[in-house]
């Protein structure tokens, strides 16, 4: 992992302590839609940490994760005219794109080999709670999420890990866990609800 010098802008969390409010970020995205490069760079500085982090979490392989992160931001550049604030925050809009692209990549065949190779270096079975030796930023937010994940039942935790963090479909998760699909759907839903409430998400 390369050391990054200077200010770690991606370290700011979405809640308290974030340098950019949701409103400020939304207006930067609107500026970007007008072709404003400086605004685009600020959007990048604000979101490169969580975008790269979530993509890497799914893909494991660093080089592939950078490729996908690049696709994510190019997609943001091309389509930021379509961002609609009434449908959710700009952070959510960008991170939905990031997770979706990571999952698409992991399901494509080419990534399978790289994933296996990376699994040797990074333990894929861990939740972020398990202290993988990685340069992970935003310790406060990480602690909070870790605490909330601990409050899930084992099955809820497994389902969230296999789907969100690993990129399996619900059906695949059901096969891996040897439980009925309806159980997976139910545990994913109540697991997310518990995380939402534990993290104090209000929209």
């Amino acid at each position: 992992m390369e050391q990054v010098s200077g200010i770690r802008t991606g370290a700011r969390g979405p809640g308290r302590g974030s340098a950019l409010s949701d409103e400020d970020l939304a207006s930067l995205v609107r500026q970007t839609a007008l072709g404003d490069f400086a605004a685009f760079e600020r959007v990048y500085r604000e979101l490169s940490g969580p975008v790269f982090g979530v993509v890497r979490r799914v893909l494991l392989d660093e080089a592939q994760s950078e490729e996908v992160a690049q696709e994510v931001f190019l997609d943001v550049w091309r389509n930021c005219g379509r961002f609609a604030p009434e449908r959710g925050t700009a952070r959510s809009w960008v991170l939905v794109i990031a997770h979706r692209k990571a999952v698409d990549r992991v399901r494509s065949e080419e990534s399978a080999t790289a994933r296996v190779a990376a699994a040797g270096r990074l333990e894929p079975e861990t939740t972020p709670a398990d202290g993988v030796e990685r340069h992970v930023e935003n310790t406060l937010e990480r602690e909070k999420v870790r605490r909330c994940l601990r409050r899930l039942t084992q099955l809820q935790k497994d389902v969230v890990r296999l789907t969100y963090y690993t990129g399996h479909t619900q059906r695949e998760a059901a096969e891996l866990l040897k439980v009925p699909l309806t159980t997976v759907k139910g545990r994913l839903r109540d697991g997310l609800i518990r995380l939402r409430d534990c993290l104090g998400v209000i929209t």
Partner: protein
Amino acid sequence: MRAHGLIAGYAVDALEPEERAEAERHLAACDECRRDLEEFRETLVRMAYAESEEPSAELWSRISASARRTRQNPPPTVPEGVVPGPGRWWYGRFPWLVAAACALVAVVLGAALVAVDRHRDDVSRHTAEVEALLAAPDTHMHEGSLGDEARATAFTSYEMDALMLVVEGLPDTPPGMAYQVWYVDEDGMRSAGMLEPSPDGRYSAMSHDMGEPVQVGVTLEPEGGMPEPSKPPMKFDL
């Protein structure tokens, strides 16, 4: 409702393609589900921040270099004379597309109403499908000629795996015959269903299982359609 239980899976991108399309159709018609989805997504924002990790410093140079070579899709503008319908949740998201699509959507929905044996439920499901297609984040509009006379407009979304087609200027079909739509891709041609006539003489279709076609074709076939086109279709590029 079954689709109701798909929202969590949709939020974490853990659905099979057909479930994803179903979830999107359902979202277009369910306020509560959109609220759930928004909350789940904000939860996932927090989880992504917990994974936050700076990429290498070169990534920005690569991104900015390619962004400078990349055209941006048109920003939304609200055209004059377009009045949003109440409760059209996609309106704010996509006014420019909606403006372009308004008249055509009326055609597609008109065709659905004309089909006499359709139930009310079918029509509202059809409406939800059209709205969901227009609301998909990756919907594109394509225009082209079909043969010498006809003009086609297509809306496609890979995410919805669906295509909406409206054709103007096709000759009336002889009795017992109908127009059939074909997806044209590297492997050949697949049926994309039948075109339905609308009261104003245009034809339309809403088709699923789009895949990644490079062209769309139309042929005149016996009513009910054929497994393969009986002659080379009129085609236009997507």
